[in-house]
C-alpha cells in the first residue's frame, strides 16, 4: 500500500471508531454540563449497552436496529437508576465525594457484569454480513459505514433535542443556573434524570456498534473507551456538546494513525498523551470557554 493510501485508510478507520468515541464523550459532557460531575461509570453503561444488544440479538433473535433501540432504552433506565441511587444523595456534597462515588459505581457495575455474564469474552453475533467498498485507493467496510451513520443520526437527533425542544431548552437553563431554572417551573430533578438517560442511551449505542465492529464483548470493554471518551470530552472542551463530537473524531483518527505509522504499543498511550497536552496547553479544551471556573 502506498503511504497516502494507508493514510486515507487510517483516517477512514479513525473516523469510524472516533464517531463512537464521540457518542461516549457526549454523555460525559452533558452530565458534566448539568451537574458538574465526571460520571466515570459511563464506560460501564457502554459495556452494559453492548451486553443488552448481545442478548437482544441472540436470545430474542432480533435484528440490529430493534436491538439497538431496546439496548438504548434499557441503558437509559440504568442511567436514571444510577443517578438516583448513587449521585442524587450527593447533589449538595463536595464534588470530590461524587467523583469517588462515580469510580465506585464504575467498579461495581464492572464486577456485577463479570458476575452475571461471566469474565470471558463473548463473540458478538454477526448480524451484518461483511462487505468492503472501494473508496479511491482505500476501502470502507459496511460496518464502518453503519457505525458512522448511526452515530451521525444520533448526533443530529441530539442536536435537535438540545437546541430546539422544550426539554433541551430546560437542559441548557439548568446547566447555566439551576435555581433560576427552578423558578421558571422547571423540575430540575427530572431534567437531570433526562440528561442521564440521554447520555446513557448514546453510550449503549456506542457499545453495540463497537461490539459489532470488533466482534467481541467482555465486562472490561468499557474501561478504555470510557477513558478515551472522557479524554475526547476534555479535548473538545468539557460541557460543550459540539466539542465532544470533534474531540471524539480527533481521538479516533489519532489512535489509528499512531498504530499505522508508529507502533500499536502506543494505541492507548496516545489518548493519554493528548489528555496531558490538552491540560498543559489549553485546559479549557478546543471549544471550551476560557473563563475561570465559577466558585
Amino acid at each position: 500500500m502506498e503511504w497516502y493510501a494507508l493514510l486515507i485508510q487510517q483516517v477512514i478507520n479513525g473516523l469510524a471508531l472516533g464517531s463512537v468515541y464521540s457518542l461516549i464523550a457526549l454523555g460525559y459532557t452533558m452530565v458534566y454540563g448539568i451537574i458538574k460531575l465526571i460520571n466515570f461509570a459511563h464506560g460501564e453503561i457502554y459495556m452494559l449497552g453492548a451486553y443488552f444488544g448481545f442478548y437482544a440479538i441472540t436470545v430474542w433473535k432480533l435484528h440490529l436496529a430493534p436491538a439497538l433501540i431496546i439496548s438504548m432504552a434499557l441503558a437509559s433506565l440504568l442511567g436514571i437508576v444510577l443517578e438516583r441511587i448513587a449521585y442524587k444523595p450527593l447533589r449538595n456534597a463536595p464534588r470530590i465525594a461524587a467523583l469517588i462515588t462515580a469510580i465506585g459505581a464504575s467498579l461495581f457495575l464492572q464486577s456485577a457484569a463479570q458476575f452475571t455474564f461471566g469474565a470471558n469474552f463473548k463473540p458478538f453475533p454477526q448480524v451484518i454480513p461483511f462487505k468492503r467498498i472501494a473508496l479511491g485507493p482505500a476501502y470502507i467496510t459496511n460496518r464502518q459505514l453503519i457505525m458512522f451513520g448511526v452515530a451521525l443520526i444520533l448526533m443530529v437527533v441530539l442536536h435537535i433535542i438540545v437546541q430546539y425542544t422544550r426539554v433541551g431548552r430546560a437542559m441548557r437553563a439548568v446547566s447555566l443556573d439551576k435555581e433560576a431554572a427552578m423558578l421558571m417551573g422547571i423540575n430540575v430533578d427530572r431534567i437531570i434524570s433526562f440528561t442521564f438517560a440521554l447520555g446513557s442511551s448514546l453510550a449503549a449505542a456506542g457499545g453495540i456498534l463497537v461490539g459489532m465492529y470488533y466482534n467481541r464483548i467482555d465486562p472490561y470493554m468499557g474501561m478504555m473507551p470510557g477513558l478515551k471518551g472522557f479524554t475526547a470530552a476534555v479535548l473538545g472542551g468539557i460541557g460543550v456538546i459540539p466539542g465532544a463530537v470533534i474531540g471524539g473524531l480527533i481521538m479516533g483518527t489519532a489512535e489509528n494513525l499512531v498504530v499505522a505509522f508508529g507502533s500499536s504499543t502506543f494505541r492507548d498511550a496516545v489518548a493519554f498523551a493528548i489528555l496531558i497536552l490538552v491540560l498543559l496547553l489549553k485546559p479549557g479544551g478546543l471549544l471550551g470557554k476560557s473563563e475561570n471556573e465559577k466558585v
Partner: protein
Amino acid sequence: MAQTRGLQVTDLTVQIGGLKAVSGLNLELYPGELVGLIGPNGAGKTTVFNALTGFCAPCAGRVVFDTKDLTNKPPHVVAKHRLARTFQNIRLFKELSVLDNLKIAYHSNFKYSILSGILRSGQYHSQEKKANEFALEILELVGLADRAQDQAGTLSYGGQRKLEIARALVMKPKLLLLDEPAAGMNPFETAELVDLIYKVKKDFDLTVFLIEHDMDLVMNVCERLYVLDYGVLIGQGSVQEVRTNHKVIQAYLGEELLCQS
C-alpha cells in the same frame, strides 16, 4: 381565617444555621395590591422571598397563595402556581438569547412530547410559534423587542433588569415578587422602571410585592408597607403610618439620632 385569593403568610419562621432570619412573620396581600417590604440591610427581606418561592424551607408557619398551601413546596411547583420573582443580583441565563430566556419561562406551557420535538410535528411548530409570539409581545411591552436575538449578557444593566421582569411575566404570574428592582439603576432608569411596574401591574392584573432600598421609589409606588428588622415585623401600614412609626425610625436611624431630634 377566611381564605382570600391573595397571599397569606402566617407565623413564618426561617432558621439559617443558628440564626433566626425571620421569626413569626404574618402578612397578607390582597389581589391587585402593590405592597413594599422594607428594612435595613440583613433584616431578612430576601429570606422572606426565598421562603415564599420554596428556596428555603421555613421551620414553622404557613404560606397560602390563591387558597392553595405552598408551604414546603419546591420552587418549580411554586412557579406553577403562578408566583414569579426576580432576583436582587440578576440571574438571567446570560449565554442564551433574550428570546430563549423567555421561552424557558414558558416551559410549563409546552405540551408537545419529545418525539414530536424531534420529528418537528405540527403540534411542535404551532406551540413553538405561540411561545415566540407571546415572548415577543412581552419584549415589546418592556421595550426589548429589537434585542430578541441578542445574548442576554450583552444587554445593559437596566436592560437585564427589564428582561428579568419580562421573564417573570412570561409565566403569567398572579403575584410578582421584585427583589430590589432599582438596585444599581440611575434616576432615569428608575423612573422608567416605575412606569414599567405600573404598566405591567395594570396589563397583567398583578399583585406586586416589592423589596427596595430606594425610599423615593417605595414611598411613591407602594400602597402599603411592611417593615422588617432582624427578622421581626416592626411596622406595617400606609406609607404615612410607616413614616411616623417610632420603631421604624429607630431601626433606620438609630437610637441616638432619635433622642436628639
